[in-house]
């Protein structure tokens, strides 16, 4: 079940790949840091769940998906959306509640949708996206399309009944779904060992007779190696594959969380495995990147985010007269 591939330290990597992977992680990190700042300034409201610490997963996974594949995500999905190609401006405008947002401002942080990119939303009911992903995959299966539906879920979802219903059906019907479990060690504030009798989540999925793998989610190369195998298998019609990605969120669960349930020491321990720092030093050691490359990536991200904020700030609100629009399809009662 654990990888038999060579350690990621020995995986081949070229400069372009290194720039892309590091660039992806930095974009997400900077974007999220700015979101937190904007939340503090009252520009973003509601719930805000940051992906800081978990960037290696989105950065590793998204380049492996085709444009015609589908993505179903959770409420901690800014990074997924951004690296799937949803424009930063459309995401930021969504969080500002503006009409130019990727969900026309209707959904906010937890509900980013972009159908041209087959990004089927952040779902804010834990586990609620799983059946949707299975349905998208079933449609592909029935219509003979060789596409992958990538479904993100958290460790918290594994305790939901719908997880077990969905694992069973995915395996029973051999659905082309790539199940990406971001195990960040907490279901909101409840630690894994306080909410799971069996903390090896891949083992649970495996009991439904599907392929699984457990991988270090702080190591973007390890993520890529595992998810590449999984995606190829799913695309080839092998059925579902469950990847458990061991990770950690460095920030609070949401903007309202005082973090009473974990120690500063624990957070500090995980931060030593910061996915960006880890990969940066690996790429530097291999002579692929230098400090000037990192600085350039950071600068590019900052420019992209500044422009996204300007776009959001200048964007109009949806007119109140449109409140009831799209409860039903146009032209129906």
């Amino acid at each position, binding site marked *: 079940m654990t990888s038999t591939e060579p350690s990621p330290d020995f995986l081949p990597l070229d400069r372009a790949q290194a720039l892309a992977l590091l660039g992806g992680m930095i974009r997400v990190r900077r974007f999220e840091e700015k979101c937190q700042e904007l939340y503090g300034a009252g520009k973003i409201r509601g719930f805000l769940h940051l992906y800081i610490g978990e960037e290696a997963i989105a950065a590793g996974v998204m380049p492996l998906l085709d444009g015609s594949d589908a993505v179903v995500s959770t409420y901690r999905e800014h990074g997924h959306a951004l690296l799937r190609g949803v424009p930063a401006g459309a995401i930021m405008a969504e969080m500002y509640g503006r009409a130019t947002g990727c969900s*026309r401002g*209707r959904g906010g942080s937890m509900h980013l949708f972009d159908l041209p990119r087959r990004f089927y939303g952040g779902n804010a*009911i834990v586990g*609620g996206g799983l*059946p949707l992903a299975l349905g998208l995959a*079933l449609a592909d299966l*029935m219509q003979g399309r060789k596409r992958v539906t990538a479904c993100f879920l958290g460790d918290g979802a594994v305790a939901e*009944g719908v997880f077990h*219903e969905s694992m069973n059906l995915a395996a029973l019907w051999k659905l082309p779904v790539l199940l990406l479990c971001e195990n960040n060690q907490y279901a909101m504030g409840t630690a894994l060992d306080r909410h799971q009798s069996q903390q090896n989540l891949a083992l649970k999925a495996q009991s439904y007779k599907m392929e699984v793998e457990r991988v270090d989610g702080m190591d973007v190369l390890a993520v890529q190696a595992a998810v590449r195998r999984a995606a190829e298998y799913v695309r080839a019609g092998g059925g579902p594959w469950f990847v458990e990605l061991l990770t950690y969120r460095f920030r609070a669960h949401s903007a309202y969380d005082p973090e009473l349930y974990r120690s500063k020491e624990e957070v500090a321990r995980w931060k030593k495995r910061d996915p960006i720092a880890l990969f940066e030093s690996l790429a530097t050691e291999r002579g692929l990147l230098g400090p000037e490359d990192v600085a350039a990536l950071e600068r590019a991200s900052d420019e992209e985010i500044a422009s996204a904020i300007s776009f959001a700030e200048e964007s109009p609100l949806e007119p109140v007269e449109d409140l009831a629009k799209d409860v039903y*399809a146009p032209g129906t009662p």
Partner: protein
Amino acid sequence: MTTYREAVRAALREALQKDERVFLMGEDVGRYGGSYACSLGLLQEFGPERVRDTPLSENAFVGIGIGAAMAGMRPVVEIMTVNFSLLALDQILNNAATLRHMSGGQVGVPLVIRMATGAGRQVAAQHSHSLENYYAHIPGLKVLAAATLEDARGMLWTALQDPDPVIIFEHATLYGVEGELAAGAGAVPIDRAAVRRAGKDVTLIAYGGTLGKALAAAGTLAERGVDAEVVDLRTLRPLDDATIVDSVRKTRRAIVVDEGWKTGSLAGEVCARIVEKAFYDLDAPIARVCSDEVPIPYPRHLEDAALPQPEKIVDAALAMVGSHG
């Protein structure tokens, strides 16, 4: 003669024949033939890809239906009964009903969910709920109640043409009902109520399993010199206010017959609309004949006592006409 069950089956068969995107999914819809035998023979005719037996996983298979609908299929999901639909309420409410609006109009869910509802077969509290009002409460859904053979035959196809999720309720006591169905019976409108019996003295408003009881009551009332009009709501969301109000304006009296519990009921919503739109046309306070506020019990005499019955409707109508004649 045709049964209601056969009418449903003919509708399912037609949908599978005419649209290759249509598939059936649910518990025991395939090899068993449907727990109410509505899909008997369809697995043999259309194969296991399109007539899919599911595990007992209501939340997952309803959600799979939603996802498949999002990706261009036209799933017809059968939830065995409304009682079990509570296990899928999350997917129905949080996804099917919400996605189009929450995504800014991007995601459509052209899904049809069928389910049996109601009491009257001595199957006790957990299998006897009438929860149509739970679903009629939810914006984003369309909710239908097929009370006649024509509607059992014709609502499905129209629902499948709808770009939004539609729930069709079939009262469990109706499957064996026999009647004449025209040879050419097919699609029917799903956006309006129907006047099933014209009358001038009082309007009986019913749907699904209570339509037959209201019509029976109207027959008895005719013998007693009271000419009742019977309105079949058919579409529980959105309600067809115009048909309801037109009838009440004519008869100036209304009784709503609803197998749901009175508190928080669909009957209460219908009353409120009549009051909002036709208060000054009323000659008497509106009455409601609903189920008693108890879990529906097993023994026949208690179950009968708990449910709306023609006699209760007759009594309510006579009291209304007598005291406000």
